[in-house]
């Protein structure tokens, strides 16, 4: 292999799922192109974008699959979950229904994706403080109970978008690199016990948050 610009050590496929209008496509565009579009259209079928990041001196190329949230714009196939090593399950902190549907999306992942898939629960639109309807603690608790990482982001003001992707890619990298070294006999162990869960602390200052939660 020649020395290429886009040479990478790992290629990770990550899917973005969640209800329609929670901001999946904008999270993707913020992360890959640093763009945000207030009037973005519904995603049809599936879209992709890639970006490479560095973890432990290794180049990790993330191939991010942005899927349609609306049922009628989803393709008939569910094969695009296959091979995905990570999933960002996005909901809108200002729309409680999108949070309620998280369970449904989890089921979808369990049905179609690799059982090792690393899932991160993402409460997007954290900039809408005054409209918040999903308390951070509640979502955090839910994530803990279901073995998911958790973060709140805002694609609009960029809060935590970078961190979210960094964290999930790092977590995947930890698992994959560990597996490659140790090759445990049971290849399908869900999570090696010695992987420390990544505690994601929201970077938004707490006092600002408190004002709106009440």
């Amino acid at each position, binding site marked *: 292999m020649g020395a290429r610009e886009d040479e990478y050590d790992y290629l990770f*496929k990550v899917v973005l799922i969640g209800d329609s209008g929670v901001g999946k496509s904008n999270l993707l565009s913020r992360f890959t192109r640093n763009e945000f579009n207030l009037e973005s259209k519904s995603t*049809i079928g599936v*879209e992709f974008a890639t970006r490479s990041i560095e973890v432990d001196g290794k180049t990790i190329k993330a191939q991010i699959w942005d899927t349609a949230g609306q049922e009628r714009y989803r393709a008939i*196939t569910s*094969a695009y979950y*296959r091979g995905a090593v990570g999933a960002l399950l996005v909901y809108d902190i200002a729309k409680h229904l999108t949070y309620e549907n998280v369970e449904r999306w989890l089921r979808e992942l369990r049905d179609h994706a690799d059982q090792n898939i690393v899932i991160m629960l993402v409460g997007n639109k954290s900039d809408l403080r005054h409209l918040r309807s999903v308390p951070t603690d509640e979502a955090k608790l839910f994530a803990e109970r279901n073995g998911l990482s958790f973060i709140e982001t805002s694609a609009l003001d960029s809060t935590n978008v970078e961190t979210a992707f960094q964290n999930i890619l790092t977590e995947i990298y930890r698992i994959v690199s560990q597996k490659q070294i140790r090759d445990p006999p049971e290849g399908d162990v869900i999570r090696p016990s010695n992987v420390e869960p990544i505690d994601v602390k929201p970077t938004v200052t707490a006092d600002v948050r408190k004002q709106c939660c009440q």
Partner: protein
Amino acid sequence: MRATIEFEECLKDSPRFRQFVSKEESDIEHLEQRLEKIIKLCNVAVDSGKEYVKNQSAFAMSLWDLQQHFLDNKNAHNALGKLIHCFQEMNKFHTTLLDQASRTVLKNLTVFVKDDINQVKDYKGHFLKVSEGYDNALIKNAQASKNRPQEVQEAANILAASKSCFQHTALDYVNYITLAQSRKVPSILSTLLDYYQACVTYYHQGFDLCNDFDEFFKNISEDLNALRGDYQQLEKVMQNRHMSVNRYCDSNTNSSSNKIEGYLFKKKSKGFKTWCRRWFYLSDNQLVYSDLDSHCRKRSNEDSFSVMEEDLRICSVRPVNEGDRRFCFEVISPTKSHILQADSADMLSLWISALQHSIGAAIQHDATHNSRPQSTNMPNALPAKRRIHWEEFLKIPGNAQCCDCRSQDPRWASINLGITLCIECSGVHRSLGVHYSKVRSLTLDAWETENVKVMMELGNEVVNRIYEARVGDDCELKRPTEQCEIGVREAWIKAKYVERRFVCAMPKPQELLASETAEVLSIDSGGVADEGGSGGGGSNVFGKHATLPLGGTRKWAVKKLRRRRQQRSLPKTLSDDPSIYNTAKTGDELDEDDDDESINIPSMSLSISRDDLLVIGDDLGLDRYETPCILGSDQESTEGESDPELPEEVPFTQLDANQLLYKASVVHNLPIMCMAFALGADKTWKNPQDRQRSFLHQAVISGSVMACEYLLLNGAVIDAVDELGYSALHISTAKGHIAQVYLLLKNKAAYDLASSDGKKALDIAVDQKNADIVTLLRLTRLNDEIGLNDEYNGEDETYKDVMKDFSNFAASQPRMLRQRNDSNTLESQRSSLTNSD
């Protein structure tokens, strides 16, 4: 009997009498206390007994539950049933006993206490009162003054009365006491005796019950002994369990049988690329593995078994030495490669040899037993996937014989010609090059649905009507036979398909116009011995030259092919009619009410309808042939086939092979398309009168997947664009034909082609909000990008999976794809109207 007091003592009211009375009173008191205690305790006993019985019956019920556990073991089930029955019977007896106890002991004793003892007690009060009255009378009498004789008299009277009363009462009292005392023994004893009897009955019943079951339980205990023996034997065998470790290793490495199964490490080709351990085995030429891992965890909600390779006959196996792991081998099929790892070097060689052996055996089996379907009675490992059996191909008219040499039971096919071939002829076809003939094995190759559809539309009989129409005119060539020399075969096949020497020439429009009756065709079936082909008989009776009275006919059209036509009466067989003018009673909308004016020439499939319209393709479709079940109605992927739409009419001046193919494509009439190719249609031709569109554009518009596939198989230019710069992919996208888009992409259509107004297929799909087509297009592009960047990885696994999904949908539920598409566009229209988001 107790000594009672004499009545005299009572009458005298002697101290003895009083002593007696008080003694008896305390005696009865004592008795009463005892009896009350007995009653109380008996009550407790009965209550606790009832509790016991209740628990006992609950216990029995739990045994019934246990019995359900042994449903699969009839003996145990039976024995348990009887035992439980026995327990329950015993319990019933016990209930009876308790009932008896309460009825005898409690009731009798209570009655005794109430009646006899209480009577005594009651009477005691009366006696005391009377006795007091008597005492008072005595005192009064004694106090009576001598001076008052009246008083004395009165007192004496009272005394006398009191005395008499007292005496009577005393006697009565004594009577009660005596009676009570005398009755206590028989009462108590009889009560207890009754209870005893009840107990006796209880035990008797139990005894009888046990007697009844005696035989049975004796048998059970015998069985038990046998079982115990078995168990001990088993235990002994199990003691040697560790021996089997060594023995197993020996047998494993020594065994030469080709049956092998066991755990292998499988490298995932996607995702985490982890190794997982799966149970592999060979079944019905398939390499199958269990989806359960060694902890029986289900990996997915699908079938618990996955087929790794569907047909081992097209696979090869080789050891893999590169890579970090030891004992690896690779199973390679034309499309995939799987890395597997055995546990040891021995196991590795065992697996490799077993796989190779079974590959060989499968091919051999196929060669020797090929007339027998192999998998008919075997459970299909993939029930969801429709397997198309090659035998179905042979049911197509003419296909039971090789298309060229007529030898029986052909095993090969040319997928672009739509014919079956024997192995020798297939070899010659191969040598022609793939632009003439694409050869596939009926038995060894995996068949794509669209290829099957093309095969179903054509077949040897249809194709030979076209390619061997003029056999006999050209006599210098020898027709090949089953055992002929290779040279004969080669010459014939070359003449037939490359030079197309036996194809009827296209009727020249000029000639058609020039003469009233044009000599259109020369029909001679020559020495074609196609009795097997049921339709061949018709053409045999044709005269050498057929003429068409073309009167005012100035237009022609190609008939739409209807695969699912109703079985209709055949055109009157020509042998019945001395003239070649055959009345086509087709019952079709084209010539419903015509009779005399219609002409039908089956070999060229021309018919002239009452409107002086030359209809091409009326008869090539072989309507008597029932579509085999493998292409049932739900397999139909052709849209609008049932539209009663009149074919487009074209003036005779434009009748040539290209126009014919062009028109045939839009009505997806494969036999006529085949004929047009035979007549020399130009694969790269575009219609100057119709926006420079190609055949493929037409086929796309027809909505038919098989017409597209047929054109592509025969070398149509996939990316040809019309004058607006639209390619077939553009049009199929715009029309929302998912299955066609899939087909075009599979055939590597250029998806990035922009039309004159700068639109790419993806833009159209996004505009149309067709999620499936968008997904297909985007994925294909992504796959190409990955393919460019990732040299060793080749095709993306996800892409393959998605494409496979679409292929499955297109094959099994094309209607669903279509309806989905319809509803999608409908939805998108609706959403564009409301646009709530």
